[in-house]
């Protein structure tokens, strides 16, 4: 089978639409994963009646496949409540799943803040909220950036899973295009390259951010 640029050209409109979907799901997923992970990480330092439910829930989510969670969110949950748009289900699925990993990143970052920092904040009569906001989280976050960035890239590579609930991200578009035209090589190649083109600059960005944060 020969490479046909004409096929590539035919695929491109579908590709752009798929890329947009991928990036949208990734952006929302990242936002959810980063913020929810932080909520978990702070919650597990709270009183036992908060800690244990959170630990149980996050352990459960981390130990079940993302695919199952996506199916559950999109196909099972509407049986009890309102149907959620597919993008919402996809973003929540990705974000929730990865929040259980970012939680561990934040947790390590928080634990790496020396106990003297807590004591100094305490000695200045800072409220717990102020202590977290001004002292602990800025330091913990700095330590967490590299690992958080790696999870964004990992999440990017898992976005094709959302095609299974009907969210046509770029790999889904490539598959659909191939099934219709019987040309698979061009669309899959384009999508493969696209993953690299998104992931590599992203990792460069993370490394730059890491260097910037390490200056003081």
């Amino acid at each position: 089978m020969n490479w046909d640029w004409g096929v590539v050209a035919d695929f491109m409109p579908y590709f752009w639409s798929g890329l947009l979907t991928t990036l949208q799901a990734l952006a929302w997923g990242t936002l959810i994963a980063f913020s929810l992970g932080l909520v978990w990480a702070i919650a597990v330092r709270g009183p036992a009646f908060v800690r244990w439910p959170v630990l149980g829930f996050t352990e459960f989510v981390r130990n079940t496949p993302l695919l199952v969670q996506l199916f559950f969110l999109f196909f099972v949950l509407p049986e009890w409540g309102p149907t959620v748009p597919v993008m919402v289900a996809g973003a929540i699925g990705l974000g929730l799943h990865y929040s259980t990993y970012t939680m561990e990143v934040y947790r390590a970052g928080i634990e790496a803040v020396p106990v003297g920092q807590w004591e100094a904040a305490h000695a200045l009569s800072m409220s717990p909220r102020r202590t977290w906001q001004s002292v602990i989280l800025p330091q913990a976050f700095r330590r967490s950036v590299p690992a958080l960035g790696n999870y964004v890239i990992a999440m990017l590579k898992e976005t094709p899973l959302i095609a299974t609930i009907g969210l046509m991200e770029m790999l889904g578009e490539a598959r659909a295009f191939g099934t219709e035209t019987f040309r698979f090589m061009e669309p899959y190649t384009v999508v493969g390259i696209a993953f690299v083109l998104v992931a590599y600059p992203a990792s460069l960005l993370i490394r730059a951010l890491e260097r910037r944060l390490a200056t003081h």
Partner: protein
Amino acid sequence: MDTPQSTPQDDPARPAGDATTPEAVPGAGDGRREDGPELIRFQDVTKRFGELTVLDDLCFSVYPRKHVTLIGPSGSGKTTILRLLMTLVKPDEGTITVDGEHLTHEERHGKLVPAGEKHVREVRKKIGMVFQQFNLFPNMKVLRNVTEAPVHVLGLSKDEAEARARDLIELVGLTEHIDKYPTQLSGGQQQRVAIARALAMRPKVLLLDEVTSALDPELVAGVLDVLRDVAHSTEITMLCVTHEMSFARDISDCVMMFDKGRIVEAAPPEQLFGDPRHQRTRDFLRSVQ
């Protein structure tokens, strides 16, 4: 009195209350000899860590504007006293009052109940602490290290807090470093910022926990000079744990010698360093000089 414990006076295991009531001990005593109410009062305070009794039925008072130095071998409970005052640890028995208010309890409907977080924070505002390891906030520049708590805890405006901070940073001689991060400063400079940070809260009591122990020898003098300045130019009460005996002699109204969680001897520095009454004090002073 060459041999240890040759007289009853030399027995370090005597009840601490006795040792804190010698004649004319300025700054620390039984609450009857000084005019005005005491600022800090420890009443029968016991603190244990597991099996180990760190403070044993301790009683003492500190009066306003006095500078009290705690000396003694490591593990004698000196730092625990500061940490109790800072509510970083809680006493197992006894009560601590600061400026007439209970540190560990509060009055509700005429009854003393364990203090809530808010009450403790209010009382704690009267106390500032400087740590051995400085504990500056590395994510903030020098100026913000000093303004952060006055703005967010005392509710000062940003301008007020900055004016106050600039004065204090000048006092500790670091005006040219005001826009630097702590890691860009030497240990001695960091400790001076930490002193400014504590003073910015205008505490009534300043606790100093071996503030020069983590410093290179050539940086110690600068920090001690700043503290001498603070001691002599302000009305702040100081409670100071130190191994710098000459500094203790300079600034103290009263020096308390601790051993095994009890006060062995409390006296003005001239007496305690010049003519210690207890063998344990003599042994200790000989070992550190």
